[in-house]
């Protein structure tokens, strides 16, 4: 039996991503092809399916056959259940963990400016998108969160550096702020500004 044929069958039958190494090990011990042959077979299969509605895709934890995203419009109708929706709060928390890992929950809250509900962290942990990679050596030893391969797999990428790049944060010079405010908004620095806005709480609690 041709190696490519067997590799293809293995990748179709596996219900999870498989690395080339894992594919190799499915072969009986004395018949295992070289890794270069396995890799060649995988590359050939990827080429074979280029024009079909399914593709062999490389993800973080290996290769997996999946239905191409162009067909999601039709295929999603197969399933009665709608795909899970994720709130902005969850996605922002996930983004912070992905881009700033390892981070504590406190770090996440500092960046977002609001508290993070335990439900969000719990959901991310249960989906196995994040995990506690370590504990920070400060009082309370809070967990430090990092992302997992499953997270990358779910979003169809192979490594963190395939995430959209973060826009650069400009360094800022405080004197520039003063200058720009002084130049562009001269009215903002005059005392007439003090009007009603100074006692927000008194009014708010009325």
């Amino acid at each position, binding site marked *: 039996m041709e190696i490519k044929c067997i590799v293809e069958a293995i990748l179709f039958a596996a219900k999870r991503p498989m690395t080339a190494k894992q594919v190799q090990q499915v072969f009986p011990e004395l018949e295992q092809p070289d890794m270069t042959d396995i890799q060649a077979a995988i590359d050939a299969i990827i080429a074979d399916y280029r024009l079909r509605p399914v593709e062999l895709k490389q993800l973080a934890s290996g290769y*997996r056959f999946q239905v191409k995203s162009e067909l999601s419009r039709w295929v*999603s109708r197969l399933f009665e259940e709608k795909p899970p929706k994720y709130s902005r709060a969850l996605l922002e928390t996930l983004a*912070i963990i992905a881009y700033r890992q390892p981070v504590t929950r406190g770090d996440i809250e*500092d960046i977002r*400016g609001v508290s993070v509900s335990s439900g969000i962290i719990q959901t991310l942990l249960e989906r196995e998108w994040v995990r506690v990679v370590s504990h920070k050596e400060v009082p309370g030893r809070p967990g430090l969160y990092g992302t997992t391969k499953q997270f990358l797999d779910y979003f169809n990428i192979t490594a963190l550096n395939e995430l959209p790049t973060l826009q650069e944060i400009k360094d800022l010079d405080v004197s520039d702020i003063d200058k720009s405010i002084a130049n562009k908004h001269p009215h903002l620095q005059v005392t007439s500004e003090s009007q009603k806005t100074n006692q927000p*709480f008194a009014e708010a609690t009325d």
Partner: protein
Amino acid sequence: MEATLAEPPPAFAIVNGAPYNQLPEDLYIPPDALEVFLDLFEGPLDLLLYLIRRQNLDIVNIPIAEITRQYIDYIQMMGFLNLELAAEYLVMAALLAEIKSRMLLPRQPEAEDEEEDPRATLIRRLQEYECIKNAAEEIDRLPRHERDTFAIDVDVSKLSVVQQLPDVRLSDMLLAFQDVLKRVEQLSHHQITKEALSVRERMATILANLKGEDSLLFAQLFTRAEGRHGVVVSFLAILELGKERLIEIIQPEPFADIRVRAAGSAAIAEEDFQVESAAQVG
């Protein structure tokens, strides 16, 4: 409702140079629209960003005083509507008020180096948050499993597969049991009595033999071939089963054969007897 809030600002959003003498348009949104406020904004930084972006301002150049006023107007409106406001929004209002009041004070150049300008801190936080907010939106757009890509499911049930079961070493089991014994010793009210194992095994065997039988002759529980030792084991097992009320040992009349039955069948027999006697009385 969301559309109203998210709509690009009207002409009044021209900020540079223009004084603000009127309340922001947002405040004329019907109150029920404001009730989605908390759902719409992911916290004070998000609200600030919204106020800045709706006026096409650069974060670095934000007119702190004006943004502060708008922000506090919002917060006040929330207060009027008695909407429950997360504490973070109020903390931010206090911070903004503080920044503004500082700006009104005369500068003390020598003090400036020692503590960081609170505006710079705020601007940095806004930038950082905006970065993450955009990144989250981009992650949301990545083709994702279950929504855009789908697992294929090829039938493998026709393949002959032998499921391998985990192996257990006897020593692992005994070590696990050793732990149990240690724990039990600590809890004094539990006692694992030390009958010989052969007795416990025989107890199970006798119960299994009684299953489905009405009763067995006492003598049937002994096997001659086992010799004296086997008889003793069986006898001890019967006594232990009796003690634990798992079997009943019965002798209908003096000198009759002793019979043994499972405790369950006794209960059924009694019921039958009661029914019979009731019938007789009737």
